[in-house]
């Protein structure tokens, strides 16, 4: 325990307040122990960039972790950073920048969607939601970069799993389990995250093309080629104007494939890729490092859905099913774009009701995918299942929830009723 933490832990906690804003681990333990004893449900928040995702649920108190922040240990040569869970992602990214390193999973910034401006959230929130950006198919998801964590279970006990080394198979890999658990299993206190060197350069091949079928064909070929892309998206016509850049004056539909690495190699691979895809010069633009970063930044930030009034849904399907799924959505008024080289579909829909929602869910399920309701109108949110689960997995999830949080005090009902 640091001096600072020792001092903080000596301040006695006022349990009558409704919002706790601890700055030491000892305070968090005390809060949880109290809540455990008195059966008080807690809503757990970081920087609230994604707290609207998930079901509405009843909580008596709120645990705000935004003061529980700071970089504990950063070892660039060991490729890891250890941070407190409330640390803003932005702060971590800035620190890594100094050593030309990055979090390769480039998590989405949901601030633009929910509040019209950037809010990339806290690292605890990023891990709890496990929404990875465009490099997903190449480098894995958020969960693939979590080397270890320390957290507090529902009884107020400090637990840990993993460590700071990349190869570690000691015991169950709980780092995976807590990733994407939306704060329902443990209150994260510390996270050790794998960091990677930034590529020497990043360039993007943009193909002017308004057709989905063609786009999926380009993406499929690109991803199956030995040019090793690290991003593949398709934006239909209506989103083209969002991407006007010095070297991209085209304002219609586009397919973009990112190539990263040493400069020579990137140029060689871009050249090869455009040949393999049989592209003519007038059909394509190449974005240099700076413009490429702007382009993928806008994608990561979901900027085409900035301050969206309607509903936003997120669908993941095997690439082979994407076309069929979107064709079946033709009856609805949707606006979509495709990420992850073809398997992630983000789409907005203005008119959404229970009937349409269940039709959409049925389509996605039939095509071996899943759907998450990222932003939906309040009336519907009260009744709709935000996440989908089958009865067997529900039963297992219930058991796992109880093993971490026996009295269901952490974000109860945020993912599923009764969990």
């Amino acid at each position: 325990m640091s001096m600072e933490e020792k001092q903080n832990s000596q301040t006695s906690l006022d349990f009558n307040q409704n919002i706790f804003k601890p700055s030491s681990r000892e305070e968090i333990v005390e809060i949880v122990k109290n809540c455990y004893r008195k059966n008080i449900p807690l809503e757990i928040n970081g920087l609230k960039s994604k707290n609207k995702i998930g079901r509405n649920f009843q909580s008596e108190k709120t645990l705000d972790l935004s003061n529980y922040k700071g970089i504990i240990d950063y070892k660039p040569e060991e490729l890891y950073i250890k941070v407190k869970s409330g640390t803003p992602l932005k702060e971590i990214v800035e620190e890594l920048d100094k050593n030309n390193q990055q979090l390769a999973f480039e998590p989405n910034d949901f601030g633009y969607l929910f509040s019209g401006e950037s809010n990339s959230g806290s690292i605890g929130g990023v891990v709890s939601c496990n929404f990875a950006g465009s490099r997903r198919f190449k480098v894995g998801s958020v969960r693939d970069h979590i080397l270890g964590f320390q957290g507090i279970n529902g009884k107020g006990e400090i637990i840990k799993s993993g460590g700071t080394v990349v190869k570690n198979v000691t015991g169950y890999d709980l780092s995976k389990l807590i990733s994407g658990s939306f704060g329902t299993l443990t209150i994260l206190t510390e996270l050790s995250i794998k960091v990677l060197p930034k590529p020497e350069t990043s360039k993007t091949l943009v193909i002017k093309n308004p057709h989905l079928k063609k786009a999926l064909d380009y993406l499929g070929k690109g991803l199956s080629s030995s040019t090793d892309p690290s991003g593949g998206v398709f934006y239909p016509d209506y989103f083209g104007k969002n991407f006007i850049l010095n070297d991209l004056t085209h304002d219609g539909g586009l397919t973009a494939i990112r190539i990263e690495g040493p400069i020579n190699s990137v140029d060689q691979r871009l050249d090869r890729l455009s040949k393999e895809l049989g592209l003519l010069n007038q059909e394509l633009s190449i974005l240099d490092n700076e413009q490429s970063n702007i382009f993928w930044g806008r994608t990561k930030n979901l900027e085409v859905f900035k301050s969206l009034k309607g509903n936003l849904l997120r669908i993941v399907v095997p690439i082979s099913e994407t076309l069929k799924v979107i064709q079946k959505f033709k009856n609805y008024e949707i606006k979509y774009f495709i990420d992850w080289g073809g398997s992630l579909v983000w789409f907005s829909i203005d008119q959404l009701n229970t009937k349409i929602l269940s039709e959409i869910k049925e389509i996605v399920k039939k095509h071996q995918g899943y759907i998450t309701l990222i932003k939906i109108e309040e009336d519907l949110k009260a009744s709709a299942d935000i996440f989908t689960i089958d009865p067997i997995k529900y039963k297992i999830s219930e058991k796992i929830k109880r093993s971490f949080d026996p009295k269901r005090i952490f974000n109860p009902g945020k993912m599923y009723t009764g969990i």
Partner: protein
Amino acid sequence: MSSLQMPKVDNAIVSKKDKIASDLRRIINPKNVLSNLDELRPFETDGLTAYRQMPLLVVMPETAEEVSQILKYCNENKVKVVPRGAGTGLSGGSMPLEDCVLIAMGKFNKIIEIDYENRCVVTQPCVTNLAITHAVQDKGFYYAPDPSSQIACSIGGNVAENSGGVHSLKYGATTNNLLGIEVVLMDGTITKFGGKAMDAEGYDFLGLMTGSEGLLGVITEVTVKILKSPEVVKAALVGFPSIEDAGNCVAQIIAEGCIPAGMEIMDKALTKATNDYSKAGYPTDAEAMMIIEFDGTEHEVEAYIQKAKEIAEKNNSSSLKISKSNAERLKFWAGRKAAFPACGVLAPDYMCMDGSIPRGKLAEVLNEISRLSKKYNLPVANAFHAGDGNLHPLIMFDANDKDSLRKCEEFGADILKYCVKVGGALTGEHGVGIEKRELMCEAFNDKDIQQQLTIKVALDPNSLLNPGKVYPILRKCAEEGRVHVHGGKTKFPDIPRF
């Protein structure tokens, strides 16, 4: 075998052997239930051959439904179950128990689907790791994780152990290359976690099952992602006058931003042993020898290999060869891949340890290992997945000499404790199994372990699935004073110990 403590034998179960066998013969094809001692013999050990135990019975199911029926029966009748894939595991994860039904998954040996569009393969679990690559290589694809035993080890076993390999530095271990599994839980429930769509919603049970060493479920189907084979692969073979120089070279290569596909170090003892064995042309006078491999497109590989060369020279490399052909590159690897048989020539037996350490601690840890080698008077040779800090000391001993085995076990334990002390882990890729079970208290406190045991109990309330593995048996941990014991009772008396 040594006096390794295993869970108490349930004599009531042992005495009902014939009845259990005949019950199981009603569930599956009777020919697939083995009960004669000569039939059971091949299953008495896995890759950790120092320990042996005959199972009560062996069953060889052919479908997930049969696995489900077997588990259900065993759960209802409180019979312990040990799952087994190819039996190549190095930590004793599928070592039988005297009163267990061993589920041998060998009949699950078919690839179910090759799906190039989604770049994945769906397979039964007892297909070998290498067979997946063989099935897709004509189209220029491969499966990335490559444990040394890939010719024999099963993909289901890889999932259970979260196996790595020399290329996991760049491509990750099994968990990072897995899309989905079908699994049967101890109560007979058959379910699928993950699938062809990435990052299935809800709790990451796929991640939890991966590396759970057969304690949470029996895997009956596996979906892995496949990658396009790199266009060019080149390797550099570098000698260093000291371990420190080699270690610094590794750190600087990583810091420079080039991530090699693999980066291996061998110490002088192993370099000499493997070179004698395989005539790989290694610099046998060097204190440390390193293989650095890059893959990708031609320009990329060229750029990285030049950078690695400069860094190696800056760190006093005493010799440096860059592969001019694929044949030469494979020759560089021939010695490294023959590390095990080469040690077999030097001593009657060897134990392969598997600790993980921060890359920067290499020299310190190797110095400690050499000090321990003198202390225990047992020779040791070291191979090291340097890029990701995974150390494999090979301790040589004589299994017929009980004292030698005991010394070897203690030596190994001391190495692993030291790995943890410098910020590493007890096991990087081989798993805990029976081998490192009692060392779990070095890495975790009682709360950490209890949390894991609570998960186990949630899915297997009678703790019948692969008991005695991974988690310490109470006695030893209590002796070491790390599990809280009061008045002879543990803090959670309702939770069974494994």
